[in-house]
């Protein structure tokens, strides 16, 4: 098992556009983020030793399995081998535990006693609840209310792990509407965290440090492929904000840039209901509904875009991570959008062929992998980021023929992005 995370930042060859300070000013400055996470976000250091306490937790479920999916290849008429890296085998059921453990460790070391977060599908909330249990922190989760109603066992699991779970909007904060539902849940968590001593808001994915922690996925996968004598030329992952995709794909980019391996195509698969990478704009936008944080340069469909309910709550986010967005802007990341019917059907095909039920989010990656396996010359690696055992109602609806695609409407996209400031060419900084 790898004992260090690998950062892609030193291999980009350009700086990420700086965040923009919100217009309103005044009042004191406070910090809730451990400095080590800031160092990991901005430093050009490539390798970061994983703290022993985090490694000890990783050893309970890592290395995660990688296998050649022969039956799935047959199911989707693949022309090349398809290798699956499976991150659903831990208690949280997804890749999110990789960064939750690291973040909980650093928050605890910084003197925080309670971490607060917002979650859509509940995978992040569950992961953070598990990490807090491991490191002795209190955990409060604001979960998108509709998602909690659809997946009550997510709430049960978080509570089992000791977390306090609130359906958002919760009535506990001043936020009752604004932005999309995940942005609102995150906004509530931000506000709630500000209201108590020892509390800190903790974000699930998208930040550079989160993507760094997820590099264990790609680093392990590269070693496992090498041990099998296998090669791939396309690496595929689904994108909500981008942490599982970044985790599986960016170590391959770093290896290539460091002269250690051939180039591979990095293929991000997003939901056609939230098509930021394929139909969004590269602009400064808020990451949550409070709009209190700095605006980040991201591919976005607008933080005010009314995202429809879907079976892939983990993909229902308006923007892509700033790191991933910059790489997309510079041509290092390809993207496709997939509708939820195709995604769930790819998930069904994977379940019957490989006997693993993937999360609907991972169904998007599998649909993308199925397409890629008809274009690839050498092989495809796909990250199945989580299991779908708490998403069976989605598969029930697929089998009943009741799943509809919810492609974003052009006029709604134009309206939600009209006021955003585009990232200027001189800020994208090619060196």
């Amino acid at each position, binding site marked *: 098992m790898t004992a260090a995370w690998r950062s892609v930042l030193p291999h980009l060859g350009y700086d990420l556009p700086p965040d923009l*300070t919100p217009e309103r000013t005044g009042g*004191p400055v*406070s910090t809730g983020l451990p400095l080590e996470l*800031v160092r990991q976000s901005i430093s050009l250091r490539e390798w970061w030793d994983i703290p022993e306490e985090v490694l000890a937790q990783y050893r309970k479920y890592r290395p995660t399995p990688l296998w050649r999916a022969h039956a799935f290849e047959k199911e989707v008429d693949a022309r090349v081998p398809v290798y699956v890296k499976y991150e659903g085998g831990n208690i949280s059921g997804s890749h999110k535990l990789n960064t939750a453990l690291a973040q909980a460790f650093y928050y605890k070391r*910084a003197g925080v006693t309670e971490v607060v977060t917002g979650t859509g599908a509940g995978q992040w909330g569950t992961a953070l609840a598990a990490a807090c249990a491991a490191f002795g922190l209190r955990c409060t989760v604001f979960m998108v209310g509709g998602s909690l109603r659809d997946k009550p066992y997510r709430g049960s699991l978080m509570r089992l792990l000791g977390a306090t779970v609130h359906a958002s909007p919760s009535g506990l904060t001043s936020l009752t509407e604004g932005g999309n539902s995940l942005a609102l849940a995150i906004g509530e968590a931000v506000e709630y965290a500000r209201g108590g001593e020892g509390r800190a808001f903790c974000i699930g994915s998208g930040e550079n440090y989160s993507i760094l922690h997820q590099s264990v996925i790609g680093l392990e996968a590269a070693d496992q492929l090498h041990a099998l004598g296998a090669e791939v030329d396309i690496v595929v992952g689904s994108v909500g904000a981008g942490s599982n995709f970044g985790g599986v794909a960016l170590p391959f980019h770093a290896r290539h840039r460091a002269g250690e391996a051939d180039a591979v195509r990095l293929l991000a698969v997003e939901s056609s209901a939230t098509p930021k990478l394929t139909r969004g704009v590269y602009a400064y936008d808020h990451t949550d509904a409070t709009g209190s*944080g700095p605006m980040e340069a991201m591919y976005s469909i607008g933080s005010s875009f009314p995202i429809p309910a879907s079976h892939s709550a983990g993909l229902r986010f308006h923007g892509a991570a700033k790191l991933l967005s910059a790489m997309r802007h510079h041509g290092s990341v390809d993207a496709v959008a997939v509708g939820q019917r195709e995604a769930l059907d790819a998930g069904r095909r994977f379940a019957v062929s490989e006997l693993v039920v993937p999360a609907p989010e991972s169904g998007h990656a599998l649909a993308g992998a199925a397409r890629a396996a008809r274009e690839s010359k050498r092989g495809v690696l796909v990250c199945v980021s989580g299991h779908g055992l708490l998403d069976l109602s989605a598969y029930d609806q697929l089998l009943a023929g009741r799943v509809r695609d919810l492609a974003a409407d052009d006029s709604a996209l134009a309206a939600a992005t009209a006021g955003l400031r585009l990232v200027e060419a001189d800020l994208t900084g090619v060196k």
Partner: protein
Amino acid sequence: MTTTHSRRDEVTLAVKRLVIRESRLSLTPADIADDEPLNGAVLRINSLGFLGMLVRLEDELDVVLPDDLFTGKVFTVVSDLVDVVLRAVEEHR
């Protein structure tokens, strides 16, 4: 006494240089008063910018600032930050 004063001067200068840069201003450290608000009419430091600034301050002063020194604390004016960084520099050098 002299050593303490020179260290305070060194930290104050480094902090002022960084708050000016973070606020994207064309001023000199001498233009910034010790009681200048960090987030006000002149300086425009937000929480995340503040954190990035602390990491750059580590490079500038060649120290590692401990996490628990800053998390949950409130900083209003330039000298609030100088006081805490100075304490860290003296404890960790």
